């Protein structure tokens, strides 16, 4: 209990500022968050026993956010676009679905002559510069000031671009609900995309995400990103372990620490639809952002050309 209280207090004191900003009020203007305003989670996967308490807690807590689609679904045109229905398979918990935002990836790996059973809670990484948010063509996803990447079910059309651009293909579609039904249901959109929202509403109230609170092994810790990175490095040093998520996709707010190297884990885990990999990931937004310099230089070159011509003509 005292542990619980101290965690609560820690959240309330240290994180409330960042947390409450998240959802309680709509910020008036753009904000520059230098990364230090972000909350991150540390996952010590050497501790996870795959009990599934976190998966259950996520589902219980976020029940009210789950999709309730209307049936029958609109017939898609062209037929290449397929309806996706998870509403009859709400209990699936061995992969990510619109009704399961967290699952445990379990595997056995050999490392340094030892056999390890490794269980990895998998969900959205909450990238520090999330492509799912930044590249959504309708602005239906948002990154809160505390770094949480959030899809708005009132605005999402379900075109799944967020999933296509996500390095881990995290968001999952449910057809038969959302604003596409009010626009051109056959021709544009196909439902709403769902993924872990890091319990932004609980965080805004100074509470911990449900999965963190429910874990009997204290696998996860949440805190300001800088602190979490420091803790992760200390932990990795202590267990002679490895880190995933600090640098991936230019940095995420989900930092895994494992006693086994992640390339070995990536080979061993089952990957595929709804089952994300653990590969190294380059910064997906970097190429575009590097090109932004050209956008600043080009008009200067244009002006220089015009001025050059002017001098030539007036000589």
């Amino acid at each position, binding site marked *: 209990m005292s542990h619980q209280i101290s965690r609560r207090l820690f959240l309330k004191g240290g994180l409330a500022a960042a947390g409450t900003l998240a959802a309680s009020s709509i910020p008036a203007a753009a904000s520059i968050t230098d990364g230090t305003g972000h909350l991150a989670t540390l996952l010590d996967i050497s501790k996870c026993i795959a009990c599934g308490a976190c998966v259950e807690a996520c589902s219980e807590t976020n029940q009210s956010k789950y999709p309730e689609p209307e049936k029958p679904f609109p017939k898609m045109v062209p037929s290449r676009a397929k309806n996706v229905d998870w509403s009859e398979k709400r209990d699936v918990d061995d992969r990510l679905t619109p009704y399961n935002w967290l699952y445990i990836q379990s595997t056995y790996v050999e490392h340094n002559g030892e056999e390890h059973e490794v269980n990895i809670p998998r969900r959205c990484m909450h990238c520090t510069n999330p492509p799912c948010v930044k590249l959504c063509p309708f602005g239906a996803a948002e990154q809160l000031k505390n770094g949480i990447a959030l899809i708005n079910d009132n605005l999402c059309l379900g075109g799944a671009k967020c999933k296509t651009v996500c390095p881990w293909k995290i968001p999952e579609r449910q057809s038969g609900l959302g604003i596409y039904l009010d626009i051109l249901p056959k021709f544009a959109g196909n439902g709403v995309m769902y993924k872990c929202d890091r319990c932004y509403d609980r965080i805004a109230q100074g509470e911990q995400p449900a999965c963190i609170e429910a874990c009997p092994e204290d696998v996860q810790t949440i805190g300001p990103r800088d602190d979490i990175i420091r803790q992760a490095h200390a932990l990795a040093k202590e267990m002679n372990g490895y880190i995933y998520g600090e640098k991936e996709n230019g940095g995420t707010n989900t930092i895994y620490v494992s006693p086994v190297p992640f390339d070995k884990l990536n080979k061993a885990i089952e990957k595929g639809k709804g089952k994300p990999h653990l590969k190294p990931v380059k910064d997906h937004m970097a190429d575009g952002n590097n090109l932004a310099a050209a*956008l600043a230089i080009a008009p200067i070159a244009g002006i220089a050309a015009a001025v050059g011509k002017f001098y030539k003509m007036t000589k």
Partner: protein
Amino acid sequence: MKANEDQSGPNRKTLMWYLYLISMVLLAFTGFGQMPIYKRYYISDIPGLAWSADFYTTHLIHYIFSALFLGIAAYVVFDHLLLKKKRFALTLSGFIRSAIIAGLVATGLLLVIYNFSGVAFPMWAAATLLVAHMTLAMALIAAGFIALIGRKPWVRAIN
């Protein structure tokens, strides 16, 4: 008229005009390609257009042609101010298209800033910018076609 005076009326099909047209076509194509429609509607199945379904590729091409477009726009504006202002004035069609382009540049630059790491816009701001950028793009295409059909030039000579 002095011998070395600029003879090219701004309505002529100069190199700048062709560059403007190319950048407009590619900006429109890659811009609409930010919506997940080219794969769904088989555009990316057309031989040579497979890249159109790759959002990161279309995003990069959009940036490259935005840079080209900004260069052309800066050149044309300064060339007009420095050399042509006394002889040519914007027509109504030219004024409307210039205003739309100014809006596209402003919303586009804000979206470039939005994409940087560490920049978070509230959802209403991002959604408004995106819808505005898209609406202005469609308005420019419409204004361009009206100008083409109605033979409305950008500028007219001042007597």
